């Protein structure tokens, strides 16, 4: 693997705030055949946004589901918030997962529940009073600029709106880690930019560490070359040649991690697959 920055370097007695939020070490998984992921190692530092690139079907979504224990690896170690989760029973994982937020490929909204109940799902399970739920749901929906959908059902929303509601659902408990699984997949360019703008806004406003899976280079580059301007309430480009230092890249190919580094290092990479992917 071309390891441009040493994200998984061992640290001596790390302070709680600098310890990696997620750390993979030698993780492999297979489903009735050759390994989908083979000996994967990387980490996510606090405040860091990692963009996971790779062609379709390479195992990006599988990797994301390993991060919060929705899938279990055949071998290797996965640390989430400092807890080893590779072989932890499901019951113990549930409270740990409430500290993460996940946005699924198609949104995965509960179609029998209204937008309000979808966004408030965790709060309802925790028996939070209704008036607090309503207030927090409206705040989360306002963040994704969909407050007017409060009482609607997912079936009456467009694909882009469903993703935005899914982002609101992932954000409502202010998670310590966000996982985005191809949030712009299958969307038109305008809607994709709206979603990326929301992710940039989340990154720059809340500074939540995140992993974003995508096979769209333009989304990845936009994320790295833009910042959210609170005054204008929109995404603006960084000055020419500058990139967000906290946004870095990973690339998967044939089950292996072939790149781990910054945008500049990605663009200078000599790996033939990386070059082919970029071109």
């Amino acid at each position, binding site marked *: 693997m071309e390891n441009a920055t040493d994200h998984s370097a061992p640290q001596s007695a790390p302070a709680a705030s600098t310890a990696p939020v997620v750390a993979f070490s030698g993780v492999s998984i297979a489903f009735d055949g050759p390994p989908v992921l083979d000996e994967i190692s990387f980490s996510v530092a606090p405040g860091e946004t990692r963009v996971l690139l790779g062609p379709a079907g390479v195992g990006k979504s599988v990797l994301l589901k390993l991060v919060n224990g*929705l899938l279990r690896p055949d071998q290797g170690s996965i640390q989430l918030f400092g807890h080893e989760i590779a072989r932890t029973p499901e019951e113990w994982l549930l*409270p740990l*997962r409430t500290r993460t937020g996940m946005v699924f490929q198609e949104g995965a909204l509960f179609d029998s529940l209204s937008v309000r109940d979808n966004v408030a799902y965790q709060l309802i399970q925790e028996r939070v009073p209704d008036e607090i739920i309503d207030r927090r749901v409206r705040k989360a929906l306002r963040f994704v600029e969909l407050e007017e959908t409060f009482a609607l059902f997912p079936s009456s929303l467009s694909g882009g709106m469903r993703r935005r509601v899914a982002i609101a659902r992932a954000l409502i408990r202010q998670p310590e880690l966000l996982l985005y699984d191809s949030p712009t997949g299958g969307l038109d360019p305008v809607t994709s930019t709206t979603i990326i703008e929301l992710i940039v806004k989340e990154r720059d406003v809340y500074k939540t560490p995140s992993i974003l899976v995508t096979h769209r280079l333009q989304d990845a580059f936009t994320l790295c070359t833009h910042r959210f301007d609170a005054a204008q309430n929109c995404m603006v480009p960084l000055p020419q040649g500058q990139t967000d230092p906290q946004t870095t890249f990973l690339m998967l190919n044939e089950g292996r991690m072939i790149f781990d580094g910054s945008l500049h290092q990605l663009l200078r990479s000599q790996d033939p697959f990386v070059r082919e992917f970029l071109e």
Partner: protein
Amino acid sequence: MTPTMAIKSPENTAKQLVLTVQDYSLFAWRAMGNLFRPPLYWTDFLQQSDIIGVGSASIVLLSGFFTGGVLALQSAATLAQFGAIAMTGRFVSLTMIRELGAVLTGVMVSGRNASSMASELGSMVVTEQIDAMRALGVDPMRKLVTPRIYACIAMLFFLTIVADAFGILGGGAVQVFLNHQNGTQYFSMAWESLRFPDIVQGLVKPIFFGYIIASIGCFYGMRTSGGTQGVGRSTIQAVVTSSVLIIFVDFLLTRLMLALFA
């Protein structure tokens, strides 16, 4: 879709069957354990009770009524040959309460609810809603499976009583209006022939059948794969397996109870 269907080898089929039985045993064990541990989702239990109990009442009522009627028609014709047509009430009530009420209700509810559970949970699996629920820190086994099992057991118990009552009523209607027999005689024979073991036998069975319907429906729903086609496959498997299992378990329970109450 492939133009030709692949023929599976007997070895693979046997392996798959053993694997399914193993998976179901683990699933049923987990579901059973969850029945006695909090959190219990009472709202979901009530909602499922409404869907299973109230929703199935009309089909159970009608099928019970007409089965009782058919029993009366068939038995009266045979019993008349021995001059024992007065025994029709006894025959109908014992058959309905000990056997047919529970089995018929089980099969009817299986057709209606095992299929709906499998398709509902299957659709949730293929649209990643189950994964989303897990990602939100909620255990789908407790949130979706346990309330369905509780509701199915409780509702099947009451639906069986409804089927028994309407079966006896249906037999009475046939006896009075078609066979022109005395209604009082029919109902008094139906009532007097009943013994405590008959009632126990008839009301223990739905507890097992309710568990089978819900656990099989949820099991096939939760292991759905292969998109919308997979949902259809799970639905068929749930109905077929639960119906066959109900009749098989009925045989075992009948044998056991006859030995117990002999």
